C-alpha cells in the first residue's frame, strides 16, 4: 500500500517537473494560430473587416472574437481556407462587406496639391512624394486597400480596376457538370 502511494507520488512529481521544464524550454512567443491565419489573409491592410489591418483581424479570429467571413479582398476562397484551418463550417460573406474588383489607386497628377496626407495613410508605403510636390502611386506595390481615398482633400485619387491581361489570364472554371440526379430524359424513357 505504502509503496504504491510512494511510487505514484514520485512518478507524479517527476512528470510534473518534466512538464514544467517543457513548458519553459519549448515556450512559443505569440499565437501560432494567429500567425497561420495571418498567412492566409491577403495583406491589403484595407480595414474593411473593421480591424486596423490584417494582423489585428487575424488576432481577433484567433481569440474567437470575430467571424471568418469579413475579408473582402480575400473573397470566398479565404473563407474556405480559414474554415479549413480552424475546423469550422464555411459561411457566406458578411452582408455588410462589399466585394470590389481588384484595383490599384491612381493619383490624378494635375489635381494633386502635395499635402502628403495619402502618403501617411498608405499601409505599404506605395505612394511617393514630398510636401508641395506632386505624389505618385507605385502601382506594383499598391494593394488596392483604398485607405488613401478618404484623407485626400481634393479627391484626386481614383481606383482603377486591374484589367485581365494576357499575363494574369487563367482558364475559366468550366462550370458545374450535371449530377446524376439532375439528369433529364432517363434512358428508359427514350427506349
Amino acid at each position: 500500500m505504502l509503496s504504491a502511494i510512494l511510487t505514484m507520488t514520485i512518478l507524479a512529481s517527476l512528470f510534473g517537473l518534466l512538464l514544467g521544464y517543457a513548458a519553459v524550454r519549448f515556450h512559443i512567443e505569440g499565437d501560432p494560430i494567429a500567425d497561420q491565419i495571418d498567412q492566409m489573409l491577403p495583406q491589403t491592410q484595407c480595414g474593411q473587416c473593421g480591424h486596423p489591418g490584417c494582423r489585428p483581424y487575424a488576432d481577433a479570429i484567433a481569440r474567437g472574437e470575430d467571424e471568418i467571413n469579413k475579408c473582402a479582398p480575400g473573397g470566398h476562397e479565404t473563407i474556405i481556407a480559414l474554415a479549413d484551418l480552424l475546423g469550422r463550417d464555411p459561411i457566406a460573406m458578411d452582408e455588410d462587406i462589399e466585394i470590389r474588383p481588384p484595383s490599384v489607386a491612381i493619383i490624378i497628377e494635375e489635381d494633386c496639391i502635395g499635402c502628403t496626407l495619402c502618403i501617411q495613410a498608405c499601409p505599404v508605403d506605395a505612394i511617393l512624394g514630398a510636401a508641395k510636390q506632386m505624389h505618385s502611386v507605385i502601382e506594383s506595390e499598391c494593394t488596392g486597400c483604398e485607405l488613401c481615398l478618404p484623407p485626400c482633400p481634393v479627391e484626386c485619387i481614383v481606383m482603377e480596376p486591374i484589367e485581365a491581361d494576357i499575363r494574369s489570364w487563367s482558364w475559366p472554371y468550366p462550370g458545374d457538370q450535371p449530377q446524376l440526379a439532375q439528369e433529364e430524359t432517363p434512358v428508359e424513357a427514350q427506349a
Partner: protein
Amino acid sequence: MSSQDDLDKLLTKLHNFHGGLHLPEHKQESLQHPIADAGLPQQLVIPLRQHIGRAAKATVKAGDKVLKGERIAEAEGAISAPVHAPTSGTVKAIEVHAIPHPAALPDTCIVIEPDGNDQWTEKPAAILDYLSASPDILLQRIHNSGIVGMGGAAFPSHAKLLYGLKRNLHTLIINGAECEPYITCDDILMQERADDIVTGIEIILHLLGLERCLIGIEDNKPDAIAAMQQAIKVTSLKRTRVIEIPTIYPSGGEKQLIQLMTGEEVPSDGLPADIGMVCHNVGTMAAVRDAVLDGRPLISRIVTISGEGISEPRNLHALIGTPISHLIQAAGGYTDKARQLVYGGPMMGISLPDDQVPLTKGGNCVLALSENEAPDPEKARACIRCGKCADVCPVKLLPQQLYWYSHAKDFDKVQDYNLFDCIECGCCTHVCPSNIQLVHYFRFAKTEIWKQEEEKRKADHARRRHEARTARLERIAAERKSRLRKKKEDLEQKKPAAGKADAGDPKKAAIEAAMKRVADKKKAAQEKQQ
C-alpha cells in the same frame, strides 16, 4: 548503354508507354504538294511574346525602316528570345493586336508594312567550321537568332541547351514523331531538308559534347524515315539512329517519345535532363543549321494548312507574323465546309475566333475544320467513373480523380494526384463517354494554382512592406519620445543650477529689484518730507 551494340538493340526492341490512342491520321491531304512559299502579305504582325518565358523588348519604334533579319526586339531575362524582322519594310506601329490565344486576348505586337524588296540586313558571318567552334559561340548564335522549340511549345532553345550543358547528358533525342492528326510540317521538312536537319543535329551534338542521338519518327512517315536515314549515312555521325516508332498518339510528347525509344521514364515533376537526355524538334534542328551556317535568324517556318474547310490543303513556308487569313488564301481559300478554325493540332490546338491573328514561331498548323471533323461537343453528363480516361492516359494519371478535385476546386488534393504531370494531350477528353471536357478542368486547376501562388507571393510582399512601415513608424515615435524626454531632463537639470526657485527667473528678479528701488525712493521721499 555506352556500347555500340546497345544502340542497335534499341532498333530491334521497342518499348511502350501506357495508354495512348489510335486516331484517324488525316496526313495525306496536306502531303499532296511540295512546300510552297506563302508569299509576302500586306502587313506582318509580330508578337513580342511568341515563346515561353518573358516577352521580348522592342528595340524599334513606329516609323523606323527595318531590313530583313534585323533584330526588332531583344530578349528580356534568361528565358526569352529576340525577335527579327521577317522582311524589309517600315514599322507601322507597336500596339496590342489579336494573337493566337485560348481566350483571344490581344498582346503587344510590332506591325511591319513590307516594302516588297525583301532586302537582307548584314547577316552575321557563317560559322563554317562549326565542329571546332566553342559551344559558347554556337550558343550565342542560337540565342541571337531567336530560335525557340518549333514543335509547338516554343521554349527558347538556348535556355534548354544551356541547362543541358550543366547537366550530365548522354543522349540527344530528336523529335520527328509528329503524332497529332493533320500536321505534316515536320514530315515534309524531313523529306525535303533531311541533310539540313542532320547538319543541325551535328551542331547540337558538338555543342553538348554528345555522340549518341536517337531520332524518333512514327512509322506512318516512310519517306521521311528513308530520307533521314540516307542523310545520316553520308555524315560521320556514328552513333545516330533513326528509330521507327509505332503510330500512336501522343508519341510526340517528349516524355512519351523517350519512353518509346529507350524504355526509360522521365521522373514525375522532372525533365528529360534528369535521366541524361535532352529533346529537340526536327524543325528546330533545321533552324539551328540556318542560323549557324547562313546567319539567318528564325523569321519563317513551315506550317500545315489543312482540314476539310481548306481548298488545297498543303504545307507553306511562311514568314513569322503572316496573318492566318493570308495563309489560307495561299492554300486556295476556304471551302463551304469551313466551320471552325484551329491553331495547332486538333487534339491540343486552340480554336480561333477569326483568321486575323498572326503566325508565330511555335505555330505548326492551321486547321479549318468542317462540322463533320469538329462536331459541337455534346452536352456533358455526369462522370460514371468508367475509368476509360485512366486507361488511355499516357502519364498513368487518374483523370477521373483529377476531374473530381478540380471540379471541387480542391487544389491541394488535385496536386496530390500529380496534376502537374498532365501533358494536356486530350486523350481522356477524347474517350470520355460522358463528354466531359476533362483537359479544360485540368488547365483551369493549373492556372488557378499558379494564380493563387502569385497572390500568396504578393500578400507576403505586402506583409513585409507593412511590417517594415510599422517598424519604421514605431522607431520614429520612439526617437521623438526619447528626444522630448532628453529635452525635459536637460531643462530640469538647468533649473537647480541657476539657484533657488524665486531667484530662478531673472525677469522676476529684475522686477522685484525695480519695485524695491521704487519703494526705497518713496521711503526716502517720505522721510524728506517729515
